């Protein structure tokens, strides 16, 4: 099958007085139609910057320094501003972090949907629009009457579903969901992820789900990419990643998850996340890595596909391959 999205060597830097901050530093991955890819990482690992980068919504002092974002074989990074504006929402859409707070509090839900359609020159009669919006809302498990409501009349979970409905309103090829449930209660979180999965499957759209909760990833995506200090350090199917994590960071991330079945000593990852302004030389994880070798302090390990569909960037596997 051909990839719907191919990201090649994406680099996004923020220019500061103290030097460039490499928020995303040479990230590559591909996405097949209807596939769900998770990107996990700690705060500052660059996962949200990837989302904004793919949509070309990086604001100064940030800048896309290089790479390619091929959506259906068109490089989004080379599109004109106007063509890019038309691509957003229509072909690649975003459910932003805390999206539920992005709704305009003084406008009815239907007015906010109409604005999106107008910007994309989708003309339809009022009657058609009502039917169309009602169908969209039902798709995400909301009543049709929500169209006439104001955001404050909705709960957090309902608002998040409105945002998902908005993101699928023009049937995009790729939906990017940035921490779609991070502000929601755990029960509502399940409902929202369930909704996202249902609409994504019906639409056949690919999803990039960004988050920090490994538990949530285990149940909502097909493949997981692990980000650390702006780099994609491991990428595998969700089953392989949990059964046999290769990168020491991934291993520690998984063992640091507390469980509900056995009481155990809580283990964290020692040390602190790296400063991106002044990242460690070599592998950015080496100061926290229990397996660090001399070479790790000198050289960033290349990404290797150690086995089919399982790639890792770690010197521990240099000889094995």
């Amino acid at each position: 099958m051909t990839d719907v999205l191919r990201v090649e060597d994406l680099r996004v830097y923020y220019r500061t007085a103290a030097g460039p901050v490499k928020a995303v530093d040479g990230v590559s991955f591909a996405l097949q139609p209807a596939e769900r890819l998770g990107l996990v990482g700690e705060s500052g690992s660059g996962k949200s910057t990837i989302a904004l980068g793919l949509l070309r919504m990086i604001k100064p002092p940030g800048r896309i320094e290089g790479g390619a974002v091929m959506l259906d074989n068109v490089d989004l990074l080379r599109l004109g501003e106007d063509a890019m504006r038309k691509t957003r929402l229509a072909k690649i859409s975003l459910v932003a972090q805390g999206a539920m707070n992005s709704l305009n509090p003084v406008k009815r839900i239907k007015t906010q949907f109409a604005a999106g359609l107008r910007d994309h020159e989708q003309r339809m009669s009022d009657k058609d629009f009502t039917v169309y919006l009602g169908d969209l809302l039902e798709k995400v498990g909301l009543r049709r009457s929500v169209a006439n409501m104001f955001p404050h009349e909705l709960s957090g979970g309902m608002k998040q579903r409105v945002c998902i409905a908005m993101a699928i309103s023009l049937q995009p090829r790729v939906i990017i969901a940035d921490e779609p449930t991070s502000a929601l209660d755990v029960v509502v979180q399940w409902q929202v992820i369930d909704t996202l999965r249902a609409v994504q499957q019906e639409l056949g759209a690919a999803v990039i789900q960004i988050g920090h909760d490994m538990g949530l990833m285990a149940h909502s995506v097909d493949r997981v990419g692990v980000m650390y200090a702006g780099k994609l350090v491991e990428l595998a199917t969700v089953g392989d990643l949990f059964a046999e994590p290769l990168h020491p960071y991934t291993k520690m991330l998984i063992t640091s998850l507390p469980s509900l079945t056995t009481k155990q000593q809580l283990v964290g990852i020692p040390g602190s996340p790296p400063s991106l302004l002044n990242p460690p030389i070599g592998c950015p994880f080496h100061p926290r890595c229990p397996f660090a070798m001399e070479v790790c302090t000198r050289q960033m390990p290349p990404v290797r596909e150690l086995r089919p569909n399982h790639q890792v960037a770690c010197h521990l596997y240099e000889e094995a391959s």
Partner: protein
Amino acid sequence: MTALLEARNVTKVFGAGLLSAGETVALRDFSLAISGEQPSVTAIVGESGSGKTTLVRLLLGLAAPTSGQVLFRGKELTTLTGDDRRRFLKDVQAIFQDPFEVFNPFYKVDHVLALPIENFGLAASKRERRELMESALSAVGLRPEETLGRYPHQLSGGQRQRIMVARAVLLRPRLIIADEPVSMVDASLRATILNSLLTLNRDLGISIVYITHDLTTAFQISEDIIVLYRGAVAEAGAVGLVVQTPEHPYTRLLVGSIPAPDPAAAWQGERVLGRGSGAARLIPTGPSFCAFHDRCPHAMPICVEQAPPLFQTDPTRVAACYLARDSPVVAPEQMTRILAGTRP
């Protein structure tokens, strides 16, 4: 024996002001006593709107109950004066959710540690002050030389939150009320903060009240747990019992909604509740009713006639659900005694 801090049949009602139509009962008839002698770790778990923040504010004396009392060593908290108030401010410490907002960005982090030392006259000299600060930082696993003399923005969220724990420790309190202390901290750093709280409990005998929405960390660090739903206790008891064999449908829903970090495990969400009798939508008829009835597939007519009392289903567990109505009823103020049964 007088409890260190005790909530006695506390109810807090908001609203019913000039502009708002209805009242909101944020917390209903809640009782809990924390002993000063026997160190404990109690988790209070609930989603948004469950009343956890209201409870914290009441326990810290930042809000007064509408009815009932909050007592510090037997005296009403809101009327404490003089030495009693100083003693409360020293014995009961709080750690809040946001490690970014509690720091004044213009001061070095030393400032938040120096203030309590000055206010309570803990150090006679600069050297003594420095030593106190250093030992408090070491107690929470921070290296003083990497922490002191820095500004808040130079430290990570995890480090900042541990400084807040160190600040609380300085005063040698008897109780730390930790309100969502790790919810804004990265997963890899949560363990260190929770472990430092546990160490304080074990080594210094400080009781911990851990307020959270995260059932998993609550299970890991606490001895007993209180699950709140819309201002009322849904279930409380030994943490293993409540989390692994929940009695209340709400607790079951909460547990079932947590995605286990294992793709092979089931993530059931609402499906965990199963199908109930399929009774028609129940309309509350009595003056009080079970707050969960509208989401519960097992709701029965009695659930909307009167709010369920606490049923003692096990020696160390109570559940406010008529599904457990064969068990003996206990008064809310008995809950503390039942929770105490979980401790050696």
